[in-house]
């Protein structure tokens, strides 16, 4: 079972933080040192990876064209799917990054008796992906209120919107529900869809479990284990972390340290994992290049010096045949000796 080890790993991480944070003096490690290291690893690792990618050139312009290219003026050019200018590329990238354009296209193939193949539109993966990613984004943005004082207006608006249902006290955030749903559905896919199950690696389950752990501890803190949670103290810690003047309040429960530790692991794990698709999606040469390679010359910095098999060599080999066949040649045949 490829998910048992990642599951065990996440449980172990929870235990480490739970037990560790109860040991006197260790709060500084879990509350300050590890988060700082994690953030540093994330930033440096992320930048390193992007620079590492960027160091390799893009020798050829290889966009995948998904619509009519720029052609004759009366042929309708599909500017979004086959962009010919930079602004069109930006628009294509926007759709890809913010609306998951390619997943929107997804189909499910089936084979029936005959054989007969069918391809039905299947937008589940798109839906699960959107649910998960946008919930995560809103949750991250909501957390900004912990790190800055005063809280920017748009964060308050976002938080108000997220809690608009006004169910329970404190009121439930929509994104808490949708991210859980997204995670369960994405995990469920990996168990149920035969093809996805077969290709899934431990590296695919681990981040799912880890983020699940983060979400669950967050929800527990807000709604269920509130007794040890002094939000003012947490904000003091968070601001201390952000301003590099850490203070460790004494009145924070273990659940918070578990949450923080799992977030730290996620940050540190990020640059070394497939989660780097966050950066990679911007750099993918099949999406971020214009389909204008016959209009503007693209330069390959390592373009090798290779000459074709020369015409002269070709004619030397076949001159006689060419002359016989009446094909023009550069060099006539030498006069034949026996013709005298």
């Amino acid at each position, binding site marked *: 079972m490829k998910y048992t080890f990642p599951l065990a790993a996440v449980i172990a991480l929870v235990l480490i933080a739970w037990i560790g944070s109860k040991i006197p003096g260790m709060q500084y490690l879990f509350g300050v040192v590890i988060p700082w290291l994690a953030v540093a690893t994330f930033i440096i690792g992320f930048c390193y990876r992007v620079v590492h990618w960027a160091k390799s050139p893009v020798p050829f312009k290889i966009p995948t064209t998904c619509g009519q290219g720029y052609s004759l003026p009366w042929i309708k050019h599909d500017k979004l799917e086959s962009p010919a200018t930079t602004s069109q590329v930006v628009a294509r990238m926007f759709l890809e990054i913010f609306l998951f354009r390619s997943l929107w296209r997804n189909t499910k193939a089936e084979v029936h008796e005959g054989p007969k193949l069918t391809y039905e539109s299947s937008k589940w993966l798109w839906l699960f992906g959107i649910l998960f990613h946008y919930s995560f984004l809103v949750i991250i943005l909501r957390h900004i209120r912990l790190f800055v004082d005063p809280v920017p207006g748009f964060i308050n608006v976002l938080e108000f919107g997220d809690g608009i249902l006004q169910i329970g006290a404190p009121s439930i955030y929509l994104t808490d529900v949708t991210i859980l749903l997204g995670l369960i559905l994405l995990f469920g896919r990996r168990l149920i869809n035969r093809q996805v199950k077969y290709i899934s690696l431990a590296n695919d389950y681990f981040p799912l479990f880890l983020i699940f752990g983060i979400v669950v501890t967050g929800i527990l803190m807000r709604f269920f284990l509130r007794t040890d949670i002094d939000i003012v103290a947490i904000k003091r810690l968070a601001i201390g972390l952000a301003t590099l003047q850490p203070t460790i309040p004494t009145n924070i429960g273990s659940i918070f340290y578990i949450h923080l530790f799992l977030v730290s692991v996620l940050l540190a794990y990020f640059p070394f994992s497939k989660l780097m698709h966050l950066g990679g999606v911007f750099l993918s040469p099949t999406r971020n290049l214009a389909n204008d390679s016959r209009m503007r010359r*693209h330069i390959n910095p390592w373009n090798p010096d290779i000459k074709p098999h020369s015409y002269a060599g070709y004619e030397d080999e076949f001159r006689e045949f060419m002359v016989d066949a009446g094909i023009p040649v550069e060099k006539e045949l030498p006069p034949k000796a026996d013709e005298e």
Partner: protein
Amino acid sequence: MAIVKVDKLAKSVFQGPSLMTGSYPTKDWMEVPAVFKPGNFAYPAKKEKVEYMNSQQGLSFPNAREWWPEDDDWKLPENWKEIIINGLKDRLDKFRSLKIFMDCCVRCGACADKCHFFLGTGDPKNMPVLRAELLRSVYRNDFTLAGKLLGKMAGAREMTVGVLKEWFMYAYQCTECRRCSVFCPYGIDQAEITMMMREMLHLVGVGINWILEPASNSNRTGNHMGLQPHTFKDNVDFLVDDVENLTGVRVEPTFNRKGAEILFITPSADVFAEPGLYTAMGYLILFHAIGLDYTWSTYASEGGNFGLFTNNQTMKKLNAKMYAEAKRLGVKYIIGGECGHMWRVLHQYMDTMNGPADFLEVPKSPITSTVFDNAASTKMIHISEFTADLIKNNKLNIDKSRNDHVYATWHDSCNTSRGMGLLEEPRYILDNVVNNWVDMPENAIREKTFCCGSGTGLNTDEIMEIRMRGGLPRANAVKYVHERYGVNTLGCVCAIDRATLTSLMNYWVPEVTVAGLTELVGNSLVLEGEQRQELDEGLRTLV
């Protein structure tokens, strides 16, 4: 080799236990070795062909030898592993695409059931994601921290002979059609990964003859068929006679003529075998009808580029002939005939590799004065762009009823669709030269079109079953419009298609024949001074 009967294969596709039909493999994919048996591999490149390629300036095809896929011992060079790992490092440094595609896959599975080989074989390693994992697992092992620390747990594995054999099997069960790339949220393109795997296999002398022999022919004789200049001309002259017999008009093509306005280059298969011959007759008739000042070349007599199927150096070397010949002959620009992968090279690679073509002029139709600014830099336009412009400007005398024996559907070639965006031009031409045509279902056309199943040099007879399985999705969509509308002709703009779709149709939908677009144009053209008989099968009519 006798190919399995269609009924049996049909049953096997539907009932055979596979990931496509509902069963689940008992073993993890890393535990399943590649087993070669007659029919599932293309024959290795002949030693002398590899040696010839290796002897050419700028090319490297080392470790030529006799070897056989079914043998345990592939007689790899002693340091083969080092060669592969260094080869991978070298390519990571040269191709950003490779780095990104190695690092970013999240195994979401969107590509899994998009590959025609997976749909036809149900073999898990034909899911694009898993085909890429064959390489990615080695990349993780040698180039990532997680792989080095966690090994198999992180999906890493050591490069072994078994892995190399897997690469050989599955890099040659991919036609670089890019359909997976359309559906991938990060645009990961299996074509790139297959290219890299094939390049690295060549480093240790592992390649197939059906690619290297045509590549060496292209280098030496100018075309992949190995037609020498006089034979090439003879073949075209036969077509000239055929055109005269059919239409009463004598067309007069020229060869290697200096000072012609336009150089015309098409895949050599068009002058060599049916049904490409009819497409070539279409070119001859079309150019005659408009009085085009053009020349064929025997030196650059191949549009297709078998280098694309081996490595980027060979692609560059073979392609370089086009500009070299255009320069030597002093033409203004180049028109390219109908071909898929050829146009991938011309559209996305040529100018970068062998440009700038500053000795040529921006293509301008001498008939309509239209300037093709979409080819302002390469100076090479597609025959369909040229023809569509002629029709739009009313320069062709067309009698559509001459195609009334045709009920057509349209096959978008993989590379002109997903590597160029040539979708509407052919449809506009079809609208104007045939009365009856219909598109296949939407998930099987345009950017979602299915491969013929035999591209990238896989149209060799010894792997016929794999080809028929890989081509099934295409054939199935054709069958649908055949049964529903009575479609009898599959139109295309690709020479490989003309050969391979013909085999595919014979197998799965024998009532449908394959025709190049310009053949259909040629059928419909009314020529000045023609003495045309009743041609109830167009240019195919026997007179």
